[in-house]
Structures are given as C-alpha cells and as structure tokens.
C-alpha cells in the first residue's frame, strides 16, 4: 500500500478541493449578511462557478489518474487535516453541483422574495440552506479526516432539517423534528466510533488509519457504531421511519435535494468507512448484513410505495427502496476478484442515476402538485395530456428506477447483476430483479391513470422552464446509461483494494 506518500503532500490541482468547500461557505455568509434578494442572486451566481470547480477537479483527476490531495494549513496528518478526491468523490461533486443548481433554478418561482418586501422568511432560508447543503456535501466527499467529516455531517443536518418544514405546517415540523433527532443520534454514534478509533490508533486520517487498523474488538465496535449512526442518516431499513414524512412533505425543490443528495452523503461515508478506512479488515459478514438490510429495504420500500395514495409519498418510499440497492454492492466489492471493479462501478452508477432520476421525479411531482393543488394519485387521470413534458420527465426517471434500458439505472443494475452472478451469489441479483418488477408496479400505478384520456383541468399551467429542469435531470439519468468505458475507469481512480477471501 503506497499510502504514506499520498497522505503527506498536496498534489497539483489540490487547491481546487478547498475552493469547492470555501466557495459555498462564503456564499452562506454573504447571503445572510446581505439578505433578501441578494441571497438568491449570490446562490445562483456561485452555482456555475462551483460546477466549474467540480469539473476542473474531475479533469485534474482524469489527467493524473491519482487522487488529488490538499493538506490544509501545511500541517500534515495526523496532526492536520487533508482533503482528498478520488473518482467517486469527483463524480459526486459534479452530480451535487448539477442537482443543486437544477433545484435552485427550479425553485426561483417558489422562493423568490415577493415584490414590495425586502426580505421574506422562506426564500432567505431556502437560498442560504441550499448553499449550505452544497458546502457540506462537498466537504463530505472531500474530507480525509474522520472528525472533519463529523463536522461535515453535522453541517449537513443543520442545512437539511429546516428545509423540511419551510411551510410551517404541524405535519412538516413534526417530520423535521423526528428527522433532526434521528440525524443527531446518528452523528453522535458516529462521533463515538471516532473517539474509539482515535483512542486506539491516535489518528483520524483515513489513509493513515487504513494502514494502522487491524481486526480487533475496538475496531469492530467503533465501525459498528459509526455504521449504525450513518445508516440512521441514510435511512436504510429499518431506520427509514423518518424519511417518508420528511421527504414527502417538504417543498419539491427541497425534497429533490434531500432524496437525491443528502441521504447519499451519509451513504458515501459508509463506503469511505468500509472501503477507505477498513479495507484491510475483512468484513464479509458485515457486508452480508448490509446487503440483507438493503434487500429488505428494496422489497419493503417498494411494497409500501405500491400502497401510497399520494404521489410524493410514493416517491419517498421509492427512495427507501432505491437506497437498498446501494448496499448490494458491499458483498460484491470484496477481495481481489475480477468482478469487484464492476460491482464498484455499479454501486456508484446506482448512486448517480438514482440522484438524477429521483430529483427529476420530485421536481415533476412538485409541478403536478402545484398545478393541481394536490398530489392524490387516483385524481391524476389525464395529467399526461395537460402536462406532457412533466409526465415525460417523471416517466424517464421511473424508467431508470425500474432499471430498463437505456438508462443509468439499467447500467447500474446490469453491472451489479453481472457481478453478483460472476461472484456466484445470484441471490442479490434476484433481489434486484424483483425490486425492478415492484418498481414497475408502483410506477405503473401512476403512469396508467396519468396517461388515460380523461379531461383534467389545471389550476395553473406549469412554467416551461421549470418543466425543462425536471426533464433535463431525467435525461441525464438516461444519458448515464450510455457512459463509455473510460467513465468506469475514472470511477476506479483511488479505489483501494479490499482484503478478504476470494469467495
């Protein structure tokens, strides 16, 4: 393991890493200070810049083929903090920048400061917290130190929770409160694991730790606590109770960001923990448990999605199910096997395609709810005729969720399926297939009435530009299905081989 040189020096392009975090932080502070409409302007101004930085990081990474590193303050780990970007980080940075920008653009219609008022509550909060989500996710993807990452997940919590209850209804406030309690509990258990790891090894730097850890009780307890805490934040079954009310009742732009990105932040850290910190600790049993919980989530979440009467709740339960897929990669990314790279790519593809598809679907559902004044599924008959573009976006997103070709979801599930068969564990493949069928079921429940020829009257037709945002996201989810091989090579940059038997 050539960990030491990686840990100890900033690389070319490393400055981009801190810039990706500091830029939205500056945006948060400037937005609060100047207030009112300026918050929106600052946020919309920074988004293209931030996207540029994310792309630049990806280009540097692509050119060098090695993870980017930046050592903050010149103090090398373990005393100081390093930021690192690998292939997974880079694609997540780009995805985050895109979806945050899309949500921002979409939300301009709802969270514009009303004329005649210098500042209003919900708009100011939204624009500041949207940037905060962006800043904290960038930190989650780049942080190389477990305590620094603790601060990142706390930032994420503080950014995400108030977004749930911007409309101040009792329902959403109670959803936000439950979300906050789950999230805080999750972070505190994560922190507990951090304390134990520091006590055992005297460093919290991911690369240094990965060299020092060995399979011993303290590591298992620490990793167990951290994983449990992060699972609560990721809402993996059976810790998903907070998610549906929070995601389904938030304003659509917020739901999109929460479902597409925020839960992925804690998932990303679980991947970092097991594949970044503990690659030298064989963890097949844990992987099996995670995958089993993931399978349960797929089946359980899909069945519940089938029973929902509200469109946004259906999408929220579908998130519970789709999160399950992410964990199917764990037992397949083990040991020096041939299929590991496939499973790794499949897991990341699922993360990305679900992010785009789910964001598109929530935004589309938001448009439907705004135009109809409700989102009851049984009263959606004929929506396809009056809002074709919105429904098309919704349908394309659904295509990716079902895993039908051509889509990112298909590619993700295909890669995972292939890996599971090559690994001789078709059970995970079977779960994926049945999950796809169930997804088809719950989407059919929406699409069938929506495409019926009934006449439906809209309260107000949606704005074209906002429909276009949802459609663009859905198309991105589809376009991921055409990712070239070079893209998969990119995803492998910085992946550490995981120890363990070749089963």
């Amino acid at each position, binding site marked *: 393991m050539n960990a030491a040189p990686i840990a100890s020096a900033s690389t070319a392009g490393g400055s981009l890493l801190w810039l990706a975090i500091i830029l939205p*932080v500056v945006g948060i502070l400037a937005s*609060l200070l100047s207030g009112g409409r300026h918050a929106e302007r600052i946020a919309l101004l920074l988004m293209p810049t931030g996207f540029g930085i994310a792309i630049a990081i990806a280009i540097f990474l692509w050119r060098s083929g090695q993870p980017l590193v930046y050592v903050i303050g010149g103090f090398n780990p373990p005393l100081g*903090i390093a930021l690192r970007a690998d292939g997974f980080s880079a694609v997540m940075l780009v995805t985050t920048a895109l979806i945050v920008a899309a949500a921002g653009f979409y939300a301009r219609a709802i969270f514009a400061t009303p004329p005649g008022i210098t500042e209003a509550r919900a708009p100011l909060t939204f624009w500041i917290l949207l940037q905060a989500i962006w800043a904290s996710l960038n930190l989650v993807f780049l942080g190389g130190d477990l305590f620094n990452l603790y601060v990142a997940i706390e930032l994420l919590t503080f950014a995400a929770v108030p977004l749930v209850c911007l409309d101040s209804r009792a329902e959403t406030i109670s959803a936000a409160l439950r979300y906050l309690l789950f999230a805080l509990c999750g972070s505190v258990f994560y922190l507990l694991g951090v304390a134990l790891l520091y006590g055992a090894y005297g460093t919290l730097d991911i690369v240094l730790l990965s060299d020092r850890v060995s399979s011993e009780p303290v590591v298992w307890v620490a990793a167990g606590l951290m994983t449990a805490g992060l699972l609560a934040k990721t809402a993996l079954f059976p810790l998903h109770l907070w998610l549906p009310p929070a995601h389904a009742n938030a304003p659509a732009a917020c739901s999109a960001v929460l479902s597409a990105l925020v839960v992925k932040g804690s998932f990303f850290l679980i991947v970092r923990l097991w594949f970044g910190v503990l690659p030298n600790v064989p963890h097949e049993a844990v992987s099996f448990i995670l995958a089993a919980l993931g399978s349960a989530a797929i089946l359980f979440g899909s069945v519940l999605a089938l029973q929902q009467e509200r469109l946004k709740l259906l999408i929220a339960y579908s998130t519970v199910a789709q999160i399950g897929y992410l964990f199917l990669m764990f037992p397949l990314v083990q040991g020096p096997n041939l299929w590991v790279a496939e499973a790794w790519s499949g897991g990341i593809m699922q993360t990305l395609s679900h992010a785009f598809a789910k964001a598109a679907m929530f935004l589309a559902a938001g448009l439907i709810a705004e135009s109809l004044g409700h989102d009851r599924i049984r009263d959606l008959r004929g929506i396809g005729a009056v809002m074709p573009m919105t429904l098309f976006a919704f349908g394309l997103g659904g295509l990716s969720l079902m895993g039908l070709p051509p889509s990112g979801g298909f590619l993700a599930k295909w890669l995972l399926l292939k890996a599971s068969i090559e690994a001789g564990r078709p059970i995970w493949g079977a779960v994926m297939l049945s999950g796809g069928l169930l997804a088809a079921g719950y989407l059919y429940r929406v699409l069938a009435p929506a495409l019926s020829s009934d006449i439906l009257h809209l309260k107000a037709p949606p704005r074209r530009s906002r429909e276009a945002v949802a459609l663009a996201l859905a198309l991105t989810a589809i376009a991921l299905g055409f990712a070239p091989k070079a893209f998969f090579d990119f995803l492998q940059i910085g992946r550490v081989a995981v120890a363990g038997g070749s089963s």
Partner: protein
Amino acid sequence: MSILQILDIGLAGLVLAVAAWTVFARDAFAAVVGFVAYGLLLSLVWVRLFAVDVALTEAAIGSGVTGVLLIGAAGRLRKLEASGGDDELPGASLRLFAAALCIFVTLVLAGVVLSLPDPGPTLAPEAARHLAETGLGNPITAVLLSYRSFDTMLEKVVLVLAVVGVWSLAADQYWGGAAGNPRGAEPDGTRALLAQVLPPLGILIGIHMVWVGADEPGGAFQGGAILAAMWMITMMAGLTEMPSIRSRLLRLVLVAGPAVFVAVGVAGVAFASGVFAYPTGFAKPLILFIEAFMTLSIAVTLPVLVAGPPKRLRQQ
C-alpha cells in the same frame, strides 16, 4: 491520593445519579433542573481529567447557556401544554428491550474503553513540536486555531446555520421582528441591580479568558460564552432587547467570526504556505485577531439561539 480517589468515585456516583434522574424523572421541568446540576458536576469531572479548557466550556455553554435554554423551553412548554396527556410511556416490552439494548451498549463500550492502550497513542508530542511555530502556549488553542483550524471555522458555520434554522421557524408575519417578549411594566430592582453589577465584571472576565487563552486554559469559545451570558442577563433584566433579525449590525456580528476566519485562511494562499496557514512569525497576532472576532460572534450567536425565532415586531 486515596482521598482524591474517594472524591473521584463519589463524583462519578453523583454524576450518574443525576443523569439517571434526568432520564427517569416524571416531570419534564424536574428533569431539566437535574440536567443543569448535571452540567455543573460534569465540569468538575473535566477538571479531574486535566481538561480545564473543556471544563470552562462545559461550565459556560454546557451548564450555563444550555441551562437557560432548557429551563426556558420547559417553562414555555408547561404553559402551552394545556391538556397534558402526553406522558404515556411506551409499553413495558419496548422499555425492556430498550433497557437491554442500552445495558448491552454500556457494557460493550466499557469493555472496549478499558481495553484501549494506556498510555495510548497520542498527538501530544506532535502538537508540542509545532507549538513554537504558532507562538502559543496553550496547545488546545493551537489545535483549534492552527493545526485543525479548518474544523473550527466550519463549526462556526454550524452556528450560523443553527441561527438560520432557528429563525426559519418564525411565523411569516414576524419576519424582520425580534425574538423574546418585551419585559412587562413590573419594575424589578433586583434583576436590574444584577444586570448592572455583573456585566462589567463578566466582560472583564470574558476578555481575560480570551486573552490568556493563547497561553493558559481559555479561549474564544469560553470567553465568548461568558460575554453571551452577560448580554443575556441584561436582556433578562429588561435593560437591553434582542435586536430585529433584520438588523444589519446583528447579522454583521453573527458572520464576522467565520468571515474573518475564512478571509485570514484564504489569505494564507498569498502570504503563507497555503490555505489556513499563517505566515511565519505572524501566527500569534493573526490567531488573536481571529479569536477577537470569533468571541464577538459567539457572544451574539448563543443568546440569539437561546432567544429563539422572532415572535413580535419591534415597536420603534
């Protein structure tokens, strides 16, 4: 030595008893009072762990400011819960399961903690080695403002986000208003006396804590929390009021700490070896400069968080 041990064991028992009380007390207010006592005892424990900086923080934030926050909340909840009826405990089986789980967690943790190496791995020598570069005498301040200043800066941003989150819970019509209720007409000499005598002394002590924090236990957090408490007491006495959340000055002070921190950090790219690095020889003055603004921000942020969302439009 043995007396100290007895003292430690007594203190441990006391902490646990009070903690148990806050969990098992029937009345929410009684539990909150228990928690205030708990915070106080905890700062004694921190002194015994040779963590005086932490003890100071716990005394000021963990016990003092949190105590006011919780007591205030308990009082308001008591007024709001007219009908009561939410005291039903979960079923016995769930409680039994929870108890088993918690005992399990405790035992596993205790086992693991005892198995940790002693003396354990440490960064103390590393921290000591670089201490001269920072010009500081207090290694904790060096960690917070130099080695790991990135964490500290981000944690200031957490405070800003908490303020935004709390404000976001205002009713729409009060946006731009101020938090807290204006004090009634009832004249209150006692409180006013306290609010006149205490703050000058408190401000002195707060600044002292920031100033000595470079070399001795203390620092921006502790000093800022003390200053925060002083502002809170003048508000409790009705001598000062929470400003409107739209006040430019208030917002400037709220973001000043993290903003100056970020600015100095980024300036490190031009004037030092990189971001959040200090130019050689200028570390200490720059750290004190940042700390001054951080202290100010903390002193304002904590009362703003305690006061809660705006609830009235300021008459003026």
